[in-house]
C-alpha cells in the first residue's frame, strides 16, 4: 500500500468519544490565561447583566475542555479504541521531522455555558500529503462535534489540523 493509500485509509475513522462537564473554576482560569479579565467568565450575576444565560466559555476553551471535565466515571463505555492519527503520525515521526499544529477551527452552533455536559465524537475528516519547498508535509484533520448530553443538539464543532513536516 502506498503512503497516500495509507493516509486515505484513516479518513472517516472515529478518534474519540468523550463526555465532559463544563465547570466554573477551569473556565475562569482559562479566561485569565488568554488575558481576558471580563467578569462574565467569573461571576454569574455579571454574565446575566450582560444578557447571557449563564457563565460563558472563551472561544478557544473547547480545545482544552477535555483536560478538565472528562471524569472517568461518566465516560461512555463504547469509546473507540486506538487513535488513527497516531497510527499515521507515529511511523512518520520514527523517520524524524516535526509535528506542527497547522490550523484550528471552531464552529459554534450555540453558546457553551458552565454547567453544560457535552458529549464529543471525533473522527478523521481529511488526510493527505504534499511537497512544499523540498519538504514533505503530511496533514491530518480531526473533526470533533460536541453535543448537549441531554438534548443532543450540537454545541460546537472543532477541526484540528496537524502537520508532520520532514
Amino acid at each position, binding site marked *: 500500500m502506498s503512503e497516500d493509500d495509507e493516509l486515505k485509509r484513516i479518513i472517516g475513522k472515529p478518534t474519540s468519544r468523550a463526555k465532559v462537564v463544563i465547570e466554573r473554576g477551569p473556565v475562569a482560569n482559562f479566561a485569565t490565561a488568554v488575558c481576558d479579565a471580563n467578569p462574565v467568565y467569573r461571576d454569574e450575576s455579571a454574565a446575566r447583566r450582560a444578557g447571557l444565560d449563564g457563565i460563558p466559555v472563551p*472561544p478557544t476553551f473547547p480545545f482544552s475542555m477535555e483536560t478538565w471535565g472528562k471524569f472517568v466515571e461518566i465516560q461512555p463505555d463504547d469509546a473507540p479504541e486506538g487513535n488513527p492519527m497516531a497510527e499515521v503520525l507515529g511511523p512518520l515521526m520514527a523517520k524524524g521531522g516535526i509535528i506542527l499544529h497547522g490550523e484550528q477551527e471552531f464552529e459554534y452552533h450555540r453558546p457553551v455555558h458552565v454547567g453544560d455536559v457535552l458529549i464529543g465524537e471525533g473522527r478523521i475528516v481529511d488526510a493527505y500529503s504534499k511537497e512544499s519547498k523540498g519538504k514533505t508535509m503530511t496533514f491530518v484533520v480531526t473533526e470533533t462535534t460536541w453535543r448537549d448530553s441531554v438534548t443532543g443538539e450540537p454545541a460546537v464543532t472543532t477541526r484540528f489540523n496537524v502537520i508532520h513536516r520532514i
Partner: protein
Amino acid sequence: MGEAKLHFEDVLEGDEAPVVSHTLSRTDLVRYAGASGDYNPMHHDEIIAKAAGQPSVFGHGMFSMGLLATAVTDYVGIDNLTRYKVRFSSQTWPGEELLTHITVRAKRVEGDRHLVDLDCSLTNAGGEIKVVGEATADLSSKA
C-alpha cells in the same frame, strides 16, 4: 442570544476593532500550560527547548489564538461567534509585543441572522504574522 455589545447597524465594512497589545512573558506560558493542560516542555522548560535547537521557550499556538479571540469578543461581544478559524504561521517568543488586528470584511443577512465576517491576525511589533484567520459573528439588530 449573546451579549448585545455591538449592533449590526453600527458596523461598516472596513471597520477596525481596537488593537490589543500584550507583551508575552514566561509567566503567560506557564499560566497557559496549566489552564489548557498542554505541558509540552518546549513552552516552559528552557533547558529542553535549547537542547532542541530553539533560542528559548516559545508560546503555545493556542495561546496566540486565545489572545486574538479575547480581542475579537471584546469587539463583537461574548457568545456571538458562529465560527473562528486560524492558521498558525510563526512562533511567539518571550519579550515579544503581540498585537491584534481585526477588520470587518463583509456584512450579510441570512434569514434572521445578521452576520459580520472579520479578518483577524496576531503580529509582533515588526508586523510578522503569528496567526492569521477569520471569524464570523451573529450580531443583534436594531430592526
